[in-house]
């Protein structure tokens, strides 16, 4: 434990404001660059160059896009309810920008006036705050769909509400094993329990949680396998069909900053947050004037900030990579996956992890040790078994399958005789009425 000078008075006020300004600006600029990255990645995946006209290799494209969006005409659908039509973009963008506040970004920064914790608001309810505010984001989308008085927007809003409410359940449930091990919902505490207590990132001992959380986060952010709310090919662009100009842009910013927050959250919960393997940076602010663990240093702060940015970027890249690979689920598939697969799996995994933790505690195994120690590796093995069972059950036509097995299954005759020859069935799928 290091006693350090606490930040007080004017210095605290000024530094907090600088932090808020810095984080907000960084988020906005990152979101702008993410739109460019999305276009670039999609272009590369499709063997194109992507935007490369504005600035060096297209780097100023977001500015051009922003300018265009500001200059564009704002349209109002004639029969919309104007108040909610105005309110919706604000309701979508505010929660998505606020949630970043509770995520610890780097190791505490020592300054002349005291040690600055690199998190905007280290509130004790950390992740619950994020869950609560992301739920508010649904209202923006539903309201946009409803107020537009447009059938496509309405359908998009409906789908978004059903999907996001469903997946919030699985999202919350997949986090419970994390809370059980960390014993806390404060994000700084969760980072500390990975780096200082467990010495193992939660992605390994809680891999199934990680998998479920990633899937649920995709659904929460309305990203591609789950982008039913937008669904360009079916619903034009869903809930923001009627929006133009900066109001449309605000939905866009909300989507991307949601993605940013989700990625940062995944990095914090499962990849050790700003932790770099090795114990030189294990530290946390216990109280305003007390630091547990290593000595804070500026280079440590910068290094851990870089590590955090890298981890977040990995998830963002995954988001985009998946978006340009996987086609959209059907509505019933989304609901099926959310309620019949993810939720039971998450509940079962809570039971398994809880039992394992209870047994380990009763046997007196201590948490920690080199690379997680016995405690950590028992969990890793239990988790590996669970993940294997989950993937085996999920796959091979059992819970989720492609369309062709279903088609062939539906081609069974009333007597239950299946068309045997695969090649014959593939060459000439016999229509059902002939068999009947």
């Amino acid at each position: 434990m290091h006693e350090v000078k606490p930040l007080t008075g004017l210095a605290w006020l000024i530094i907090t404001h600088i932090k808020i300004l810095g984080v907000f600006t960084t988020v906005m600029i990152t979101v702008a660059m993410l739109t460019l990255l999305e276009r670039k990645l999609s272009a590369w995946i499709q063997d194109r160059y992507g935007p490369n006209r504005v600035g060096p290799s297209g780097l100023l494209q977001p500015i051009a896009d922003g300018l265009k969006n500001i200059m564009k005409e704002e349209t109002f659908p004639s029969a919309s309810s104007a108040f909610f039509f105005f309110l919706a973009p604000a309701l979508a963008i505010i929660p998505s920008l606020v949630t970043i506040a509770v995520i610890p970004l780097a190791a505490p920064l020592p300054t002349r006036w005291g040690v600055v914790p690199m998190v905007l608001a280290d509130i004790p309810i950390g992740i619950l705050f994020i869950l609560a505010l992301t739920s508010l984001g649904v209202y923006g989308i539903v309201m946009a769909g409803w107020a537009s008085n447009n059938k496509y927007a309405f359908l998009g809003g409906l789908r978004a509400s059903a999907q996001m409410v469903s997946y919030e359940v699985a999202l919350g449930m997949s986090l419970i094993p994390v809370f059980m091990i960390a014993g806390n919902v404060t994000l700084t505490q969760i980072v500390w329990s990975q780096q200082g207590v467990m010495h193992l990132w939660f992605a390994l001992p809680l891999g199934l949680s990680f998998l479920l959380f990633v899937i649920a986060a995709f659904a929460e952010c309305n990203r591609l396998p789950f982008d039913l709310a937008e669904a360009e090919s079916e619903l034009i662009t869903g809930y923001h069909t009627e929006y133009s100009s900066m109001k449309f842009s605000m939905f866009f910013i909300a989507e991307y900053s949601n993605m940013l927050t989700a990625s940062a959250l995944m990095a914090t919960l499962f990849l050790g947050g700003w932790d770099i393997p090795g114990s030189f940076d294990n530290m946390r602010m216990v109280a305003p004037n007390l630091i547990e663990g290593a000595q804070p240093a500026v280079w440590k702060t910068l290094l851990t900030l870089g590590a955090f940015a890298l981890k977040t970027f990995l998830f963002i890249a995954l988001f985009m990579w998946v978006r340009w690979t996987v086609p959209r689920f059907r509505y019933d598939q989304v609901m099926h996956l959310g309620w019949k697969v993810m939720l039971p799996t998450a509940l079962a995994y809570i039971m398994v992890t809880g039992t394992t933790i209870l047994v380990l505690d009763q046997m007196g195994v201590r948490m920690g040790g080199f690379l997680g120690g016995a405690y950590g590796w028992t969990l890793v093995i239990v988790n590996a078994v669970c993940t294997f069972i989950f993937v085996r059950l999920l796959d091979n036509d059992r819970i989720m399958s492609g369309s062709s097995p279903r088609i062939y299954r539906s081609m069974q005759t009333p007597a239950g005789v299946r068309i045997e020859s695969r090649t014959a069935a593939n060459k000439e799928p016999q229509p059902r009425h002939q068999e009947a």
Partner: protein
Amino acid sequence: MAIGVKTVRRPDSNTSYLRASLSGMMITLKHMVNPKKVTLEYPDEKPELSPRWRGTHVMATHDDGRPKCVACGLCPTICPANCIRLVPGEDDQGNRYPIVYEIDEFRCIFCGMCQEVCPVEAIHVGQDYENAEYTRERFIYDLDRLMAQDHPVSTLWDPEDVLGQ
């Protein structure tokens, strides 16, 4: 079946969403890191045209700047779109020349028959595709405009084997 279309056999059992998605992601990753792009950066790079490309017309000229056209009237006769207007004239020596020679490039279907039929190889279709204009009137090319066109002309047949033997 169109050329180059690969027919994929659809599996009817043992399918896996995860395996299929992962292999799909490997394919997209391969394309992502592949430096070979299919984009033609148009204003900077231009596509290579076929020698038989048939674009807007070019009227060939003699060295002294007169059009080679002898106003025989074959091209307006053969033109299936009826887009060539020719008013023939005759000078003191009895040489025929076009008083008015106009091609409406909007009506033209760029079949190239005017070039094929021309006995003195005066009218040609050209290797050109950048012919945007601001008004419809500008698309009626008169004789001066046709003579001023400087893009290469189309080669409708092999010059060494005109009859295609």
